[in-house]
């Protein structure tokens, strides 16, 4: 158990953020009531909260569908990115051949592939969404990891050479651990991207049990409380996914400046 002063100190530390959150909700609620803002423009927080209670099962089903698609795409894209980055760090020709295109692809709005994915994988298949998310995630993770793998100090490479270490040993014992902070900062960006990709893809059709379809359908039916509840849920899933990455990061790289505690 945490001792009490430590716990109080943490609460104290978070007071400004808690204050702004609660204050923001109160201002929002007050504005909606005082100016009688219509629900299709902005529903009150209490109305959205009430919708959560009535629509729980539909919302959770849609949320779970979207979250699992985003997670699958994140894992697939992430793994492919790691393998490609390792190959690019190991073989110069892979790097010189692939990296310019990767950097170019990373500057394009890949999410525009979403409507096309339907014609490739079929409207009902989750593979279309996973595909869009995986591509979206792949490039930033791959490029950042390559950057990390190649940013080791010359003196560290020479140290490995002085031990007559092979290329693989250097990659595995020096370059990859050195690059893990780069990998995690890319994964944190990718976590948000994966939900964006999944939801945008769902805007273009597919199963009703997805947040993207849920939001467009409810908005079309002028049921804005439901649409807003789904938007809040999507945000919560985004924050959750980000924090999962952060938790793993803390376990994997406790030594790094961004994580070290004592």
């Amino acid at each position, binding site marked *: 158990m945490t001792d009490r002063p430590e716990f109080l100190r943490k609460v104290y530390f978070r007071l400004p953020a808690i204050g702004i959150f609660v204050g923001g909700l109160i201002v929002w609620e007050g504005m909606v009531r005082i100016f009688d803002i219509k629900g299709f423009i902005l529903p009150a927080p209490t109305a959205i909260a009430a919708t959560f209670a009535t629509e729980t099962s539909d919302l959770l089903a849609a949320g779970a569908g979207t979250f699992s698609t985003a997670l699958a795409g994140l894992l697939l894209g992430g793994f492919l990115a790691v393998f490609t980055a390792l190959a690019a760090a190991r073989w110069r020709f892979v790097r010189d051949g692939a990296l310019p295109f990767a950097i170019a692809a990373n500057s394009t709005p890949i999410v525009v592939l979403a409507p096309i994915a339907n014609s490739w994988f079929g409207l009902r298949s989750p593979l279309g969404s996973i595909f869009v998310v995986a591509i979206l995630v792949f490039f930033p993770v791959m490029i950042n990891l390559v950057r990390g793998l190649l940013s080791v*100090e010359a*003196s*560290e490479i*020479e*140290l*490995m*050479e*002085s*031990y*007559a*270490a092979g290329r693989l*040993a250097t990659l595995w*014992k*020096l370059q990859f*651990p*050195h690059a*893990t902070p780069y990998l995690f900062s890319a994964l944190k960006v990718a976590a948000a991207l994966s939900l964006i990709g999944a939801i945008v893809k769902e805007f273009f059709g597919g199963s009703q049990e997805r947040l993207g379809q849920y939001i467009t359908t409810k908005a079309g039916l002028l049921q804005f409380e439901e649409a807003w509840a789904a938007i809040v849920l999507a945000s919560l899933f985004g924050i959750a996914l980000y924090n999962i990455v952060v938790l793993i990061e803390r376990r994997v*790289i406790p*030594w*790094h*400046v961004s994580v*070290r505690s004592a």
Partner: protein
Amino acid sequence: MSALALRGVGKVFNPGSDQEVRAVHGVDLSAERGEFISVIGPSGCGKSTLLRLIGDLTPPSSGTVLVNGKTPARARLDRDYGMVFQSATLLEWRRVQANVELPLEIMGMDAAERSRQAAAMLELVQLDRFANHYPWQLSGGMQQRVAIARALAFKPSILLMDEPFGALDEMTRERMQSELLRIRAETGTTVVFVTHSIPEAVFLSTRVVIMSPRPGTITEVVDIDLPEPRSDDTREDQRFFELLTDVREGLRAVEDS
């Protein structure tokens, strides 16, 4: 067979271009097993390049280098070298013990043997209590001692050190020097040591090699006949001061020329 034999060794960077630099030129030097050779000279005199030529980190442009009778490349593959640089270059994700084990891991030693060997080395540099610390939790001097333990862990026959104590304060520096001499007495390793400190070179060495820049070449070799084992009293010995003067005059001759 001598531990080190250099004949007519030269190194030219960017040959033929207008940025050509003759970093090392016509160097002849040999060392017997167990000798402690310091290389001293003003910055840009090629002393670090000379060390890199010996350690196979850069190939010579001319002449031959033999280490234990072998080419530097062969010697490196045979793991004859332990190297210590000015910065400790510890891997920040490895704890102290794991840093010392790194070369042993690469050499394929089994885990139990590795752990025993690394623990013994940490004891040698008197850091066994810090085996589970991360490098950033240690002071600069302690990090450098870990680097020395790591360099000695696989019992290399020759230790190459490039201003290893250059970033340390004077007090720590003198303690590290005494420690290095004690470690060397225990291991019998041949040492080539690059420094720009005259007292450091004299205190540590069996011979001090003085180099001059443009082109980097050896101008004088001073034999250090201080009695062994050396201690803090050595630093106050009359002979120590005489040798300091010898080396200083050798360096002055370099600067005046």
